[in-house]
């Protein structure tokens, strides 16, 4: 039961982020919401790889009582960690692009509220 808590956290984070993106009108607030959703997804990936009683997937940093032969069952899965690293970097790139676009929008529109940033409609 207690090991399901990270999954509940994931669901809560995604729900909070989605709430911000759906109901907050400020574009920077929406970017913050996107970051929260992304944190939730990253946490989800890391939690997937976690194994109870496992240890970090660093080969040179094994505990002294573990021989390399019984690594497979004992190590936390490394692949989701690699995925998460990639996802973090992509997330920052996307956020930087969003924010630079937001600054340019502010220069032209004088506002960042989504109900006013809508010259393109119909």
């Amino acid at each position, binding site marked *: 039961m207690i090991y399901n808590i990270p999954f509940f956290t994931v669901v809560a984070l995604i729900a909070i982020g989605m709430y911000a993106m759906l109901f907050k009108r400020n574009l920077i607030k929406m970017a913050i919401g996107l970051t929260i*959703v992304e944190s939730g997804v990253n946490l*989800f*990936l890391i939690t*997937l790889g976690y194994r109870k009683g496992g240890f970090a997937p660093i080969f040179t940093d094994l505990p002294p009582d573990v021989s390399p032969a019984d690594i497979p069952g004992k190590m936390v899965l490394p692949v989701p960690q690699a*995925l998460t690293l990639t*996802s973090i970097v992509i997330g920052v790139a996307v956020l930087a*692009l*969003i924010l630079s676009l937001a600054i*340019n929008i502010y220069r032209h529109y004088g506002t960042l509220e989504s109900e006013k940033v809508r010259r393109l409609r119909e």
Partner: protein
Amino acid sequence: MNIMDHLPALVIAIPLLTAFLTPLIDRVSRKARNAVVFIALALTFILAILLVQDVFDNGIQIYVMGASSTTQTIPTQAAVPIRIVLEIDGLSAFMVLISVLISLLGLIYSFSDIKERGGRFYTLFLLMLVGMLGMELTGDLFNLFVFLEVTSIAAAALIAYEFRRGSTSEAALKYIIISSIGALFVLFSIGLLYGEYDLLNMAAIAQAMQSTHIDKIALVLLFSAFALKAGAAPMHMWLPDAYGEAPGAISMVLIPTTAASMYALFRVCFTIYNESLHAIIPAVIIIFGLLSIFIGVTMALVQDDIKRLISFAAVAEVGYILLAMGVGLYGFLNSEEYTVTALRGGMFHLFNDVLDIGLLFLVAGGVIYATGERSLNKLGGLAHSMKYTSVLFLVGLAAAAGLPPMNGFASKIIIYESVYKVSPILSIIAILASIMMLAVFIKIFQAVFTGPKLTECREVPKPMLASMIALAALIIFFGLFPDMVIEHLVDPAVNALMNYGAYIQAVMGVGT
């Protein structure tokens, strides 16, 4: 080392390296930069054609990164593929051909269209091509996600390229936020699938697929995210914004990026989930298709901005493809005999859509280039001064509206007939919408090209004309010889869609 063995990697690597080389060369000379970009893309085009030829002749090609041999998918110590695998079957090859061809033509167009500070433009342009090609070539779900994000970021930066008009930033912001939410959905469902099967390779997942509840949740997330990126109504609102505000040829090159998402959608439905796909999904695709056709055509009729009007028409064309593919998927799941025809119509229409709407976007870009005006209400009588462009627009109009003997008609008649087998109402709606599409384009032609000379302007420069003429020639060729195109280009893609077993077997070895 035989260069032919490394084609799949080279096709991605050449534009990727050139993309980051371009800003450096740009400091030296602008001409040299143009030449380097053009040569790199032409080389990519040639290599892509060799690759496509190879795939169509010899079947599925595999390229494994980092293994001792490029075809060793499963390492000797492991039971499943763990390396990055590029897998190219007929469908991928078909999509690669479309992407590279359209990018090349778009590049030639951009040489005269993009004037100031072009270095960044070409970097982003090549990165967008890399993203598309990566999505189409990869055999790995996580790579698909990464390349999806590469495409989205590059495309958003390109849409906002004319940053002095504020509305471009607005369109780009909407595009990037919507696509990164879609991408997060994709990442989440990759996590679900990985948690269940410990696999990321698409063929391996397809083999292990058991259709549990988790698989269904992943299916819904993947499906809705890729349908969003493909521009299916009612999630299409970002598409007219993005296409309408993008500079010149980028509107055209954005069509293959949506087509790449459509490819991902078909890959998920036909290959990964194949027969265990939930029966509701074909119906959902058909509904998306009908809504896209209807909303796209009716909304296009009332637009006043030339590019935005064509963008809504592009939504309708997406609808035709989705309609045909939905019917094909329905037939595929129930082993009906019209399946091949429907899929053939859908894939052929995908190519035609890129060509027809692409030509219209190029003409619209030419009109904006020559007059500096986007509003249809202020334009008029351009045929007096832009004769070639007007004729090219007529070709695009006839093709996109599906007038015989153009290519649009050839694919649409296949779609009508196959859709008729499922329900006559579907094909009636499709035909009516096609007639309305003609009315939509007549509106542009009447308002912009005919009438007294209202706007003073000159004919567009030669590189722009050259790429438009190349597109028009392709359209006419496709229109006059549809059987050849279907036999040599479309049928391998359709076979690849139907024959998911071969896709799995190519990676997983004997036994599926």
